[in-house]
């Protein structure tokens, strides 16, 4: 066969196999999470007015600015700083002074993520670390829950307080959270209000049904592992439910425990942070069960009304150990051991 002249590329490209690539990239995953958080931000705005947008917006700005200032070049594009910003904002009360929010966001990204080496290397969930910092630094501001004002447009607190000045919070506009009412005043709440979000609390934790919907979307798309929310919620239901069976007067019922506080937001959006959760599926069950147990212990016997944040941070610290003891069994390893033994 004579060789037919053929156009050839001057230089063939050489890359290693495999030459195909799945569709999803880390940035796709992160921006999908951002997208599914937006309805929750919208619900927060519906319940808490313009203050919600101010707090979440400031938190995102603070997180992104810190990422840009201290992070690797182009690392804003991966979307993870935006997620941290939104999540931190959603865990704060609507009336939080904005300078505190910005400080918390800077701490979340700077100390929570970049100090460890940036995306993928941090041990603790950055948003929760930022919130833990704010809780330690400004315990009063972070537990001042807004009540119901006369108009949607009214700010739910002194958002524009100057740094290091006493924020001006009239008593009349504060209210308690369902968990606070339960712990300190032995007063229950209507479950329907808890489910739909018509209650006091942090910005993003109230609309439980919406959080579950958004989480369900992410789980279906494969951007969120359902094992963690499932094991956390099941553990809380079983543990709190048995306590309630033993002494109904002393311990809250399982539905109340599930729907109040930040449990669902934490279970769906915080515990599932891929970077700070176990990498093995068995480990994810262990991780979720651990969080559920710690949440119930803190809420029931601890000094604080809410314990989701500390439960997740505590289990974050155990992730390396969980990973080590839940390594998958290699195909053929058992047969090989039998042959050798």
């Amino acid at each position, binding site marked *: *066969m004579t*060789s*037919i*002249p*053929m*156009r*050839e*590329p001057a230089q*063939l*490209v*050489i*890359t*290693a*196999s*495999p*030459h*195909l*690539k*799945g569709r*999803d*990239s*880390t*940035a*796709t*995953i992160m921006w999908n999470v951002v997208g599914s958080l937006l309805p929750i931000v919208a619900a927060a705005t519906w319940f808490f007015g313009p203050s919600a947008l101010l707090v979440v917006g400031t938190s995102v700005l603070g997180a992104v600015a810190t990422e840009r200032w201290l992070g690797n070049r182009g690392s804003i594009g*991966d979307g993870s700083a935006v997620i941290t910003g939104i999540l931190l904002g959603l865990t704060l009360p609507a009336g939080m002074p904005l300078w505190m929010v910005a400080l918390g966001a800077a701490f979340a990204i700077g100390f929570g993520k970049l100090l460890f*080496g*940036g*995306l*993928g*290397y941090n041990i603790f969930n950055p948003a929760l670390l930022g919130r833990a910092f704010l809780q330690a630094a400004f315990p009063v501001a972070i537990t001042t829950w807004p009540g119901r004002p006369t108009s949607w447009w009214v700010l739910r607190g002194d958002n524009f307080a100057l740094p290091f000045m006493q924020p001006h919070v009239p008593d009349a506009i504060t209210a308690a959270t369902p968990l606070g009412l339960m712990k300190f005043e032995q007063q229950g709440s209507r479950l329907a209000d808890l489910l739909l979000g018509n209650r006091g609390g942090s910005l993003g934790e109230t609309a439980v049904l919406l959080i579950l919907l958004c989480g369900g979307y992410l789980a279906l798309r494969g951007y969120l*592992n359902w094992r963690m929310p499932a094991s956390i919620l099941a553990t809380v239901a079983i543990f709190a439910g048995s306590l309630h069976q033993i002494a109904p007067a002393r311990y809250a019922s399982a539905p109340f425990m599930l729907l109040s506080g930040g449990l669902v937001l934490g279970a769906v959006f915080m515990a599932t942070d*891929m*970077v700070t*959760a176990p*990498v*093995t*599926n068995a480990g*994810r069950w262990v991780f979720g069960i651990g969080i559920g147990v710690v949440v119930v212990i803190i809420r029931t016997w601890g000094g604080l009304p809410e314990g989701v944040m500390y439960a997740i941070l505590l289990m974050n610290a155990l992730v390396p150990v969980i*990973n080590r003891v839940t*390594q*998958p*069994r*290699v*195909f*053929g*390893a058992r047969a090989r051991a039998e042959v050798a033994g």
Partner: protein
Amino acid sequence: VERIVTVSGHGVARPANLIVPVGTRLRDLLAYCGGLTSDAEEILAGGPMMGLAQRNLDVPVLKGTTGIVVLTHDEVRGQGSYPCIHCGRCLDACPMFLNPSLLGDLARMGRDEEMAAAHLADCMLCGSCSYVCPSNIPLAQLFMGSKAALRRQVTAKAGAA
């Protein structure tokens, strides 16, 4: 001494299954299939998952050659990668139930001995982990390098003994 060879990919003008003598050069094979398209960039001996990229078109069809795939510019895999976010997709994808995430971390730190303890030898370089990795980490390529490094160590030890 003939092989049935599949010539395909978007970079080939007329893809075909051909019976060709072993030793046929890729240049002749591709010319018979109508040549390359203008955006053809990479030529693989083998399939898109485990095939090897070829340096030039003088390479002959060998006795093990089953297919030639020509990738276009848009299909060539990008080299940029994100850090590992430990999403665990590679663990779900691995047919040997290895932990490619852990192996990848170890490989980038050059900790070959720990990789051997984590059953690197069971990896068959199928590339499923690299395929699913959202951070585009070249896991299979890293493992190939670590396997070679471990083999060299074993050979060196055998030589010294």
